[in-house]
């Protein structure tokens, strides 16, 4: 595809919310999620000349955000806010003021309990609203793997949500 000038302001306007949600699902921390989102767009602004296919900007942004998050994990291995154990995530979610709806916290709790190999695919599907092709590109895995992980991950999530269901929480229909 012929490359045209990136309209960064439109891209920010369209994608900062889903990108922030994805960042929050990774970090479970409002400030860190905001930093990751800002940093990701700044990288795009600096490297826009290297983005050859503007139709893949969305995947590029989510890939970059995930890479930055993992880089931060590696460089700050003792950072308490990025601990990925489910019980720790629950506490951080509960402490955060960002989740105005307890429903979102319930879903994030359940997502945290899904096997890690499935969780990332589910987060990109639900939070980033990526297609299976975009998820495959973001995680650099085959399309078939995306589909099988989505299928298994959704089943795990359904079971977890059923277990945690309460009047305030999501109530999946019987399967």
């Amino acid at each position, binding site marked *: 595809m012929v490359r045209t000038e990136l309209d*960064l*302001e439109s891209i*920010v*306007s369209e994608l*900062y*919310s889903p990108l*922030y*949600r994805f960042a*929050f*699902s990774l970090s479970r921390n*409002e400030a860190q999620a*905001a930093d990751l*989102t*800002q940093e990701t*767009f*700044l990288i795009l*602004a*600096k490297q826009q000349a290297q983005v050859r296919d503007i139709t893949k900007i969305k995947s590029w942004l989510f890939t970059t955000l995930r890479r930055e998050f993992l880089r931060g994990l590696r460089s700050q291995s003792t950072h308490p806010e990025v601990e990925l154990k489910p019980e720790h995530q629950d506490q951080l979610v509960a402490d955060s003021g*960002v*989740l*105005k*709806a307890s*429903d*979102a916290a*319930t*879903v*994030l709790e359940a997502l945290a309990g899904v096997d890690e190999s499935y969780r990332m695919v589910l987060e990109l*599907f*639900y*939070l980033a*609203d990526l*297609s*299976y092709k975009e998820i495959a590109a973001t995680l650099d895995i085959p399309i078939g793997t*995306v*589909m*099988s992980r*989505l*299928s298994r991950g*959704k089943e795990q*999530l*359904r079971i977890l949500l059923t277990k945690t269901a309460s009047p305030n929480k*999501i109530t*999946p*229909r019987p*399967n």
Partner: protein
Amino acid sequence: MNSDAAKEILSAYRSSDRDGADPIFREALNQMESDSELKKWFEEQQDRDRTIREKLAGIEPPADLQAKILARIRGEKVRRFALPQVWLAAAACLVVGGIALFYSIRQTGPDRFQEFKTDAMAMVSAEGGPQLDLRTPDLAETQNYLREHQAPRDDALPSRLKSMETEGCRAFVWKQYPASLTCFRMPNGQLLHLVVINREAMGNANIPVGMKSVGDWHVMFQQKDGMLMMWATQAPMEEFKQMVVKVAAEPRLGS
């Protein structure tokens, strides 16, 4: 394709408007016509996906996040243009395309104004505040500095602004036109920026009137004595109105 294979494929299906045309889903969707159990499973799954997405939408970004991102991007744009290599390249372009540039200066309209607005906003919203040549609370000193550097300025500022302290000023060149930035310290401590440039720099562009919001910034353009003046601040709209609308409406004290 058996039912399990169809379920695996349909797990990746989002909605008809986004995925309906994808051939990989068509076969699985067609299979539903003859498989009522698969159809029921699919409908429940779509229902559940919709509910989960709605609930996750409860994760709201901070209210000022978009504005912060845009400000950082604008700051990066300014920084990139400040790199020596870029200036060298720009100088080379000026030499090679001098004539074309001359005509473009004369002929460009709205794009030129938009470009100026973008660059001016990037300058005033740079992280840590705009770069200033002179830092002083004394308006007279800023005006003297701009005069010495032959930068356009408003020598007939309204009395209200004359009594305010300044943060400082800067003389710069935009597209070969001298320009200036003066930063006032408002009573609430926030800065009010005044960018002045010769109106001619905008070519035949129409200059919009009225106040605009750009992210969490409030901006207003004003024309006076052949100059284009841009007022910009992050102060609350009401305070900005009180300050700038009065400035624009106040009778001129002279030129």
